[in-house]
């Protein structure tokens, strides 16, 4: 009896037009045990791609006979499962970013070191071997309620716990997004699509829209889903501890460092590191994060040697990141490195009837948890929910429904059962009195001469007063996330 041999692995396809560089890359790859087929032009590369069945392609974006990006798109159209690692010279990073958005698996900026080069290839090969999509996998963290992002501990001092396996029949996190609106359908398709690459994902959206859930979905649909998912809130950790939280420290490196600590980047090795509120990161740490992204190495505080790690970065903010760059709060080079695949989480008010589906799903779940029986939402409540602006988004809906379930015995949910802040909601916030040309100058005169921070505070306090202290309403008028407003108010105490 003979044992069936596994089919031979197709060679790596290397498309590079500078002959000496082609020889160097080939040497590195063959030395590491890989079979390689080389091509010096786009035409030759495409022909080899068709002939060899290559599943991993190393592609120089600047080719003499055709744009490398265009070639990549043709290859992905022929075999969408191909992992294309684009290689380009420093100075063409925008081109590489464009390639990532078009479906490249990873990009390398020349010159790169051997370890990073081989690491990218091995990750790509591992991803192919794992197959995709995988609909249910273990994960480190999952949200506890439909669409509810797991709150990130405000002072997470230690690395997160090891992965907790989840029942294999548990649906993937993308199915945890409740809502059948077209926007959410598009979003879920996008998550599945970007998950397979190593591209950095930049999630934007208001507070409560489910940014962490989105990050978790990207992780769980990716080839690295069996690895850890580590979440870190850059805005919640004191800046002087953040470096240690991200990169770790060695015992004795500073007062209070009583033992070695690996840090989030090392804890995420083989998995995904989710950096929430990335725009809150201190400038000094931004520099270190950039170096980490360029070298894939971490150097714990007090350590003498860096350590290589294999981490995919997903980050999020409720701010406009480009505005943070313009204001000088966020490094432009880091922005371009991170803002590869942007995903915007839509606010609930733009998701049509999703609010009803979310509320009903949450009602059923919370009722089961509390051992109560509810019969759904009354038409009046449904109408009210459709009308409300929901500045706190999904998180606010979940809080409202939780309140209903806790404070009532059961039955049909009517407006009287809702918390006051929702039941009394008059709809769109009343406009502030207009200041016409004549009145504007005296109003501004009172502000001239004051520092901008004080002017901001005066305006925020006046707006809060106008809305009887309601932060969500004031935040909506000021076009800020409520969490931002809370943070500012806390800062004044």
């Amino acid at each position, binding site marked *: 009896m003979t044992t069936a041999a596994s089919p031979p692995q197709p060679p790596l396809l290397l498309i590079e037009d500078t002959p000496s*560089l082609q*020889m160097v890359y080939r040497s590195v790859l063959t030395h590491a045990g890989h079979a390689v087929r080389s091509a010096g032009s786009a035409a030759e590369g495409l022909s080899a791609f068709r002939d060899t069945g290559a599943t991993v392609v190393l592609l120089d974006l600047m080719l003499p006979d055709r744009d490398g990006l265009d070639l990549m798109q043709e290859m992905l159209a022929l075999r969408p499962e191909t992992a294309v690692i684009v290689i380009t010279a*420093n*100075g063409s990073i925008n081109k590489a970013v464009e390639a990532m958005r078009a479906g490249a698996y990873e990009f390398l900026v020349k010159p790169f070191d051997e370890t990073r080069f081989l690491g990218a290839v091995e990750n790509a090969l591992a991803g192919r071997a794992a197959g995709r999509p995988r609909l249910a996998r273990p994960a480190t963290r999952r949200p506890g309620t439909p669409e509810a992002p797991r709150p990130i501990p405000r002072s997470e001092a230690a690395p997160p716990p090891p992965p907790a396996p989840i029942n294999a029949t548990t649906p993937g996190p993308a199915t945890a997004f409740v809502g059948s609106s077209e926007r959410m359908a598009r979003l879920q398709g996008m998550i599945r699509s970007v998950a397979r690459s190593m591209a950095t994902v930049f999630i934007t959206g208001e507070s409560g829209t489910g940014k962490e859930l989105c990050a978790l979905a990207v992780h769980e649909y990716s080839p690295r889903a069996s690895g850890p998912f580590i979440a870190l809130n850059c805005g919640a950790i004191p800046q002087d501890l953040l470096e240690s939280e991200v990169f770790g420290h060695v015992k004795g490196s500073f007062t209070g460092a009583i033992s070695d600590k690996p840090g989030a980047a090392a804890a995420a090795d083989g998995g995904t590191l989710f950096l929430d509120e990335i725009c809150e990161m201190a400038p000094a740490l931004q520099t270190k994060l950039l170096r980490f992204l360029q070298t894939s190495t971490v150097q714990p505080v007090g350590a003498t040697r860096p350590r290589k790690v294999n981490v995919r970065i997903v980050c999020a903010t409720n701010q406009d990141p480009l505005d943070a760059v313009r204001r000088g709060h966020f490094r432009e080079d880091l922005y371009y490195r991170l803002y590869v695949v942007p995903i915007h989480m839509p606010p609930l008010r733009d998701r049509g009837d999703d609010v009803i589906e979310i509320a009903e799903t949450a009602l059923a779940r919370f009722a089961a948890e509390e051992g109560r029986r509810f019969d759904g939402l009354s038409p009046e409540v449904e109408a009210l929910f459709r009308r409300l602006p929901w500045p706190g988004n999904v998180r606010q809906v979940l809080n409202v429904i939780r309140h209903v379930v806790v404070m009532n015995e059961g039955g049909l949910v009517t407006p009287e059962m809702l918390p006051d802040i929702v039941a009394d909601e008059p709809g769109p916030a009343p406009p502030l009195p207009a200041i016409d040309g004549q009145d504007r100058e005296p109003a501004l005169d009172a502000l001239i001469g004051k520092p901008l921070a004080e002017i901001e505070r005066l305006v925020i306090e006046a707006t809060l007063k106008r809305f009887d202290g309601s932060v969500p309403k004031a935040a909506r008028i000021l076009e800020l996330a409520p969490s931002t407003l809370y943070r500012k108010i806390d800062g004044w105490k």
Partner: protein
Amino acid sequence: MTGHDPTGIFGTSTALHDILVLAGPETAPRLLQQIHADLVAVASLLLPALPPPHDWPQIRRQTHVLISLAGTIGAMRLHGLAIEMNTAAHDQDCSRAAALLPPLEADLTGLIALVGLRLPGHGVVA
């Protein structure tokens, strides 16, 4: 070790040596010849394009190759100059290009000479 390098083109980098060791004794001479040939090809197209009126597309193309090639073999000063010249070409910045021309030309020709010294028949080993 990068052998005789009076101009400091390689600095302390051992990248070229490492690459040749990795390539092995059979491939290393061919690889060295190819690196030399590629550098000569870049120089033959780049240096005539640099003086006014500046052939900007050609400068961009050739500095792009030079960034990768110089960086890969550890000629980091030339690598940096190539990046700067590439940026100047993108911006069509004549004065910047003029300022970069002498050091870039000196390092490029120096590098070609250094690599040439290592070619079979010149008696210098990697």
